[in-house]
C-alpha cells in the first residue's frame, strides 16, 4: 500500500498528497501524522494538495479531521496549493473547510504558520 511521506521543515511538518485518497490511506495518514506531531513537537502542519484535481467531501472531511486533531496537539494546520477549479467545486458543494486555514503555496503557508505561532506566544523559542 502506498504511503504518504511526512517531511519535517523546522518545527513544521509537510504532507504532500499526490495519490488518490481512500479510507485506509486516510486513516494511516492520520495515525502517522499525529505520531509525528507528538514525536517532533511540531507547531505547524502543511498539507499540500496542489497535485489533486478532485477534492470530494471525503477528502474535505479528512482535512477537517486532521486540522482538528492537530489543534488538540497544539499545532496549526494550513492547507496549501489548492487549484482554482477545486476551490470552486468545494464551495459549490457547500464545503467551505471553515476549520482549516489556507495559503496559496508552501512559501506563504510557512509564513502564515510563523505569523500564527508568533501571535499566539511571542516569547516562544524558535525551535530549528
Amino acid at each position, binding site marked *: 500500500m502506498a504511503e504518504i511521506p511526512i517531511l519535517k521543515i523546522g518545527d513544521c511538518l509537510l504532507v504532500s498528497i499526490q495519490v488518490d485518497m481512500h479510507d485506509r490511506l486516510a486513516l494511516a495518514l492520520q495515525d502517522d501524522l499525529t505520531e509525528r506531531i507528538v514525536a517532533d513537537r511540531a507547531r505547524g502542519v502543511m498539507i499540500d494538495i496542489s497535485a489533486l484535481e478532485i477534492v470530494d467531501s471525503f477528502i474535505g472531511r479528512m482535512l477537517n479531521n486532521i486540522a482538528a486533531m492537530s489543534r488538540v496537539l497544539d499545532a496549526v494546520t494550513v492547507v496549501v496549493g489548492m487549484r*482554482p477549479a477545486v476551490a*470552486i467545486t468545494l464551495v459549490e458543494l457547500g464545503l*467551505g*473547510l471553515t476549520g482549516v486555514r489556507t495559503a*496559496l*503555496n508552501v512559501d*506563504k*503557508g510557512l509564513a502564515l504558520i510563523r505569523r500564527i505561532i508568533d501571535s499566539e506566544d511571542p516569547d516562544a523559542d524558535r525551535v530549528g
Partner: protein
Amino acid sequence: MSGTSNVILSLIDRHYQRLLTEWLACLKRDAGIGGAQREAEAAELAKRFLEELRQCAAVAQSDDIHASEWAPLRDLLDDLSRTRVNQGFSAGETTIFVFSLKEPLFELLRREMGKNADDLAREIWCTSRLVDTLGLYTVESYSRTREEVITRQQQELLELSTPVVELWDGVLALPLIGTLDSARTQIVMESLLERIVTSGAEIAIIDITGVPTVDTLVAQHLIKTISAARLMGADCILSGIRPQIAQTIVHLGLELNVVSKATMADALALALRRSGKAVVDRAKSAAPAPPAE
C-alpha cells in the same frame, strides 16, 4: 412530384418576366422600397429567389420545405434574414418580401384557370400554403438570428463587466458592476482565483458599488466567492456598501462573515496595513521629526 410544385414550376417557367415585374411592383408598394440602390438589391434578390424556387420545385418530392431538396432556398432565406437583421429591419419588413409574392402568383393563377372555380380554389390554397411556410421560415430564421445577436452581446457584456485589477503588490480588486447571477458569479470566481494564483495576492477587495441590489441570492453568491478565495489562501474585504444596501442586509438577516468597509479607499488602507505597509503624509511627518534612518 407534387401538384403544387408542378403548377408553380410551370407558372414560373412560362411567365417568369411578368411574375418578376409584378412582384417587384408589389414589393415597392408594400414595403416602401425607396432609392435606386435598394430597388436594384430587391430585384437581384427576387431574381435569385425565383431561380431557386424553380430549381427546388423541379427536384422536390414534397411541399415540405424542411426536406433536403429545399436547402438552397432555405439558405437564401437565412441569408436574407441575416442581412435584414444586421441592417435593423423589423420582422414584418423582412417577411413582406416573401408574402408579397402571393398577389402576382394568385393573379397569374386566376388568369390561367379563370373558368374553373374548383381548380382555382385548390391551386390558390396550395400555393398560399407554400408561400406561407416560406414566410414562416423567414420569420423563424429572423428571430433565430436576433437571438444569436442577443446571446453574443450578453457574452460580451459578461466579459466586459468582470475585470480583476491589481491595486498594489499582493492586493487585488474586483469591482463588480451589475446584478450578480449564477453565471456571472461563476465567471467572477474563476477570473478572481486565476489572478490570485498568477499574482500570489493575499488580499482581495470586492467592491459592490455597482451592484444595484443585494438580496439573499446575491449575498449567497458573494459568500461563495469569498469562501473560494479563502480556500486559495486570500482574505477578502468587502467594500462599496451603500447605506440602503447596509439596511437591506440587516433587514434580511444576512450574515456575510467578512470584513467590510464603506469605500474602496478604506479597504485599500486596511489591506496595506495588513500587509505591513504604511502610507505617510510626508509634509506632516517631515516637520516634527525627520525619519531616523
